[in-house]
């Protein structure tokens, strides 16, 4: 495992741990998702730099575009949740449990 591989893996895992274990606010969950996507962006760009392959140079941009769309959908849902539930606390999303 190279140092680069280790660092992006640990960045991703930190984001995933934050998403799964620290679930107070929806906004912090969305930030964790964004952090995961950015670590993947770093991984993909360094991969294409290391291989010096121009075919993969567009891959990080595509990833960034998709993660921006995802973040936009997430923020729209944040607004919708705040309007319907009053807060962005994930603990309040309990209407469907039984």
């Amino acid at each position, binding site marked *: 495992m190279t140092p680069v591989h280790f660092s992006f893996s640990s960045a991703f895992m930190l984001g995933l741990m934050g*998403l799964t274990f620290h679930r107070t606010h*929806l906004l912090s969950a969305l930030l964790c998702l964004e952090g995961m996507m950015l670590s993947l962006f770093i991984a993909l760009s360094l991969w294409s730099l290391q291989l010096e392959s121009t075919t993969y140079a567009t891959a990080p941009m595509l990833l960034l575009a998709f993660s921006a769309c995802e973040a936009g959908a997430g923020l729209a849902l944040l607004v919708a949740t705040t309007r319907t539930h009053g807060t962005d606390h994930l603990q309040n999303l309990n209407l469907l449990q039984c």
Partner: protein
Amino acid sequence: MNPYVLAILLSSLGIGTTLTFASSHWLLAWMGLEISTLAIIPLMAQQHHPRAVEATTKYFLTQATAAAMILFASTTNAWTTGEWNIQEMSNPTALVLITMALALKIGLAPVHYWLPEVLQGLDLTTGLILSTWQKLAPFALIYQISPMMNPTLVIMLGLASTIIGGWGGLNQTQLRKILAYSSIAHLGWMMIVMQYSPNLAILNLILYITMTTATFLTFKNVASTKLSTLTLTWSKTPMMTTMAMMTLLSLGGLPPLTGFMPKWLILQELTKQDLPLTASIMALAALLSLFFYLRMCYAMTLTIAPNTNNNTSTWRQKSSQTTMTLSITTTLALALLPITPAIMALTT
């Protein structure tokens, strides 16, 4: 919803799944999954009531996490082996990660908790899309990586899904939650046979989609989402109630109906692979599922609900809903067992 927006969303839903089907590169497969997730979100949240928004939020968080994990695992695989092809993954850690991420995407047992809640918050049409069309893309990826997956993990996912799918549905009275647990149990049957005979898993998926479409469309036609409203369907449409009872028994896997075919073939395959214990556990777990299907049948056809209405309502206007899909899928869900040899010849 505006018809133009609806057309764009539905075609993106189709394009996303098709892109995942057609790709051999992990990045494109991931893009297809993301497109279909992003396309269904507005469809889920179009009624602005709190339950729909909550279900959408939960669905978004799980699907986004699963998609990020898939991309992370394939990037790890690319960093260690330099290979982006779906069918040539070889890093064991990446394979375990990707199996769990795909299990999260389709709702297999240890990571299934989102599925009943999300399905409960949606209307029946979107629920139908969620439990049929949205399963196809992740399932195609599972099919492609199935020869390399960790056998113990696959067996554990399959067994846990069938048992928990049967067990969880026992205590439910909401039809959509029961159907969600039924989906988990059926996916468990598909996972267990995935590495021994992938074509059987595909056959099971096709038949499950047929039967569950028939069930969802029946419930949509009589507009019922609870067991208690299901008891009134006989007065509205007696014939469809009878058919729905048999469709439910077909989902449960009783012999003269279609649903028996995949269970029979899978049990035979497991026995041939010298796994009698696994086959017995699967057969016994199917009984748990059968219990809640039987309870739905009982409430629907064998009891008369304690209310003032005690004969069929002749004055009721004819329903204006289209029933073509419903009649075709019901016929397929009831009567395919006799042509099992032909279907086997087509799929294997």
